[in-house]
């Protein structure tokens, strides 16, 4: 669908000529995010402020053109992909940190502010912003809020929604609203709560007010090896069963450790079946006590080669291995397909063995690197996109893994979002009535369906993946 020249002209008037891209060749460059599927927008529009965002959405609304907000395009579920064409609303020009209030411990930022940039600035006040997705060097706070992003430290601190106090949003009719606020309780429905994580299907975000936390005075980071994934999984449950919720509790399997060690030389034990990275923070007495207790629990569960970071530089190195793990897998194959299903923590051994079997069945290497404390998997199916034959195999393997997650009582996504890639699987966990209730919200706020269409809800127009037709595991059948 091409946009009418008059629409392009209107958009140019709204944001300025040079901030509308409509050359078809250039639009192709915007067709993907960090997931696999792509589709080019009909125009890329770069507003500078909320008034321009509102003007653009009004034009879209009048002409019934899809609007898909886009930050850095680091999302892993296709949230920023313009699958029905339309306008890619690129918010990357809106990247000012408007205010940091060290007394109230809040920050007000524009949506294009990069997650790590906020942390850098907050650090000058001895504060930090807790959600730390692995893409934090590039991903934007607007995107984080839209997707309700997580990260390793969300085990203790909670995910994005627990840190967003309020937002300025533009709805599908172009109207501008403040939702949420600084006060702990507010009168009325929690619009902010439902808009965070709505994946751009209800609103465009133009400002975000977030909570900042005091930087803990002491941090301790421990790397421990385990002979098998099962042993490491049991150790994870045991740590938490002991009443300790670490700041982060991450697992990497042997495939990942091999790739990471080759790239970062962080001293990860390459003979291990799995490696855990455990971090606690607080005052010095607390980290010392907790780490001593954790070491004991890990040792009781066959942990060995335990190594505690002795300096901030060593801690950074240990984390560099974890945060760069997915990229380092590029050493094995140039592409990865990554789901982020969540299982109840106690089911980790079962799901990991199921994931392994699926990999073997499809003859595809699989590397696991994930937030073990949350039960939030990240099985990376490794392949080479240039091999055209392999892609359907990869997608099938991914589906089967997600299916296994659901059969163990899990969820489709812990932090990446449903987006495009998992929308067809929603009936696995939600009944028609459940989905209808969610659609009530969608229709109440976006009657014409122009905001990020084709996401979250199963799309009858799209080809159904081969397992997607299966139902019967909806939450009600399983456990209510």
């Amino acid at each position: 669908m091409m946009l009418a020249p008059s629409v392009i002209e209107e958009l140019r008037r709204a944001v300025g000529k040079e901030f509308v891209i409509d050359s078809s060749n250039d639009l192709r460059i915007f067709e993907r995010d960090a997931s696999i599927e792509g589709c080019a927008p009909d125009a890329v529009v770069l507003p500078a402020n909320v008034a321009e965002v509102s003007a653009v959405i009004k034009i879209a609304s009048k002409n019934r053109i899809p609007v898909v907000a886009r930050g850095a395009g680091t999302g892993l579920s296709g949230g920023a992909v313009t699958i029905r064409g339309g306008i890619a609303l690129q918010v990357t020009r809106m990247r000012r940190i408007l205010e940091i209030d060290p007394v109230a411990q809040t920050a007000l930022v524009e949506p294009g502010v990069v997650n790590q940039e906020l942390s850098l600035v907050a650090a000058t006040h001895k504060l930090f912003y807790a959600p730390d997705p692995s893409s934090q060097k590039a991903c934007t706070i607007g995107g984080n809020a839209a997707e309700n992003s997580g990260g390793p430290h969300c085990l203790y601190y909670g995910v994005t929604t627990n840190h967003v106090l309020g937002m300025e949003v533009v709805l599908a009719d172009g109207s501008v609203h403040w939702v949420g606020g600084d006060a702990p309780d507010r009168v009325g429905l929690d619009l902010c709560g439902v808009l965070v994580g709505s994946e751009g299907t209800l609103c465009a975000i133009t400002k975000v007010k977030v909570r900042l936390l005091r930087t803990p005075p002491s941090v301790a980071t421990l790397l421990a090896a385990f002979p098998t994934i099962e042993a490491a999984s049991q150790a994870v449950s045991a740590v938490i069963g002991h009443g300790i919720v670490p700041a982060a509790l991450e697992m990497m399997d042997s495939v990942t450790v091999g790739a990471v060690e080759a790239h970062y030389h962080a001293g990860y034990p390459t003979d291990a079946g799995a490696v855990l990275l455990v971090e606690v923070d607080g005052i010095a007495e607390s980290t010392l006590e907790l780490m001593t207790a954790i070491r004991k629990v890990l040792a009781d569960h066959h942990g060995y080669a335990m190594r505690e970071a002795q300096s901030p530089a060593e801690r950074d190195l240990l984390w560099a291995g974890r945060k760069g793990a997915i990229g380092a897998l590029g050493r094995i194959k140039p592409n990865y397909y990554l789901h982020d299903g969540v299982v109840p923590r106690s089911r980790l051994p079962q799901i990991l063995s199921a994931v392994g079997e699926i990999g073997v069945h499809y003859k595809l290497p699989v590397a696991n690197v994930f937030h073990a404390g949350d039960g939030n998997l990240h099985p990376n199916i490794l392949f080479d996109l240039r091999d055209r034959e392999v892609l359907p195999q990869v997608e099938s393997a991914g589906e089967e893994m997600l299916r296994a997650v659901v059969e163990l009582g899990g969820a489709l996504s812990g932090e990446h979002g449903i987006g495009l890639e998992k929308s067809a699987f929603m009936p696995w966990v939600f009944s028609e009535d459940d989905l209808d209730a969610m659609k009530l919200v969608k229709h109440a706020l976006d009657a014409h369906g122009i905001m990020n269409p084709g996401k979250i809800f199963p799309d009858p127009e799209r080809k159904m993946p081969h397992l997607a037709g299966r139902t019967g595991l909806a939450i009600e059948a399983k456990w209510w």
Partner: protein
Amino acid sequence: MTTQPFARLNDDDLATCVHCGLCLDACPTFRQTGLETESPRGRIYLMTQWKRGGLPFTEDQARHIDLCLGCRTCEAVCPSGVPYGRIIEAGRSEVEHIRRPTPKRWLARTALRQLLAKPRRLRTAGAVTRAAQKVGLTSLVRSGRQLPALRPRFQPPAGGIAPAIGPRKHRVAFLVGCVMPILYPQSHEAAVKLLQLAGCEVWFPRAERCCGALLAHNGDLDGAERLRDVNMQVYRDSNFEALIVDSAGCGAHLKDFYPELEGRVKDLSEWLVDVGLPTPAGEVTMRVTYQDACHLAHAQRIKKQPRDLIRSIPGVELVEMRHPDICCGAAGLYSTLEPAMSARILQEKLDDVLSTRAEVVVTGNPGCQMQLESGLRSRGSTMRVEHVAELVVRAFLH
């Protein structure tokens, strides 16, 4: 000569990009424009489409390749190890082969080739001025910036050897290069002095030419190969432990483009930290900040050593800016060829530099030095710019 389109672009290199986007905010042009098309990921995607026939080559889209600074900050943050430097040089080279050059680009390339191929053409200060005019460097003057005040050209000692001070522990070769001896002779002098203090006998190969970095970075890989052949004849059979380079762009090029020298090319700071300097006698009371030269920090991954050297001087206080490893917008000829984008990047850099309230901003590359000097002057700042060697040598001049 190849007939296959985009033959220089290696498909395996392109395939290493997993499209994760972690490079985006490291890219100065993305930070300025917020556009995928002006990001490393976008450029790789574009070149991949060209290579695989997904998009036709157009001059409009070639602009995205032009706008890349080649700073390689993206390469340093890339978890997948994408060889972006190699990809963009190949891409540039293809672009230059395919499109009709603009008069400015044609002039720049021709002038560069002519000037850099024959060292005597660069021998006088007059030649520099002419060169500046030929390659369009005068546009710097028009935009309120200037070349540094010209000093007498750097002269290697007679006999081509500077002896070690104290017992001789190492024998090293020194890259005199093309631009440094004319624009920043004092950096070379300081560098040589430090090498001598570190017990190095410094050899200046007479027949050495420009390393070819400026040509390669601007898409003239053939010209760069010719210079490499000339230089390798000089280096191949000579006896030296290391080839010391005090200009980051040259160091990066030598490390990437001269496989025969593998492991022997060393940045000055890298080498000095390795072999050790004597304890300085003097104190330098000064607040300084450090600007990572892209070709040092990203292409060579050297960030720690220059800082270690700076911190080793008694009295010096090193204040980091927020983004010391983001490009200043100089990028070789970039500031000439893309003055508008270069100026935008420079302004952001100047804000960051000035916020440190340092007396001196220290760096390790002539291009950065020039760019920062003219920028600071245009802001009316008295902050000075020095090469790492110049700062460090002060501690030994008492």
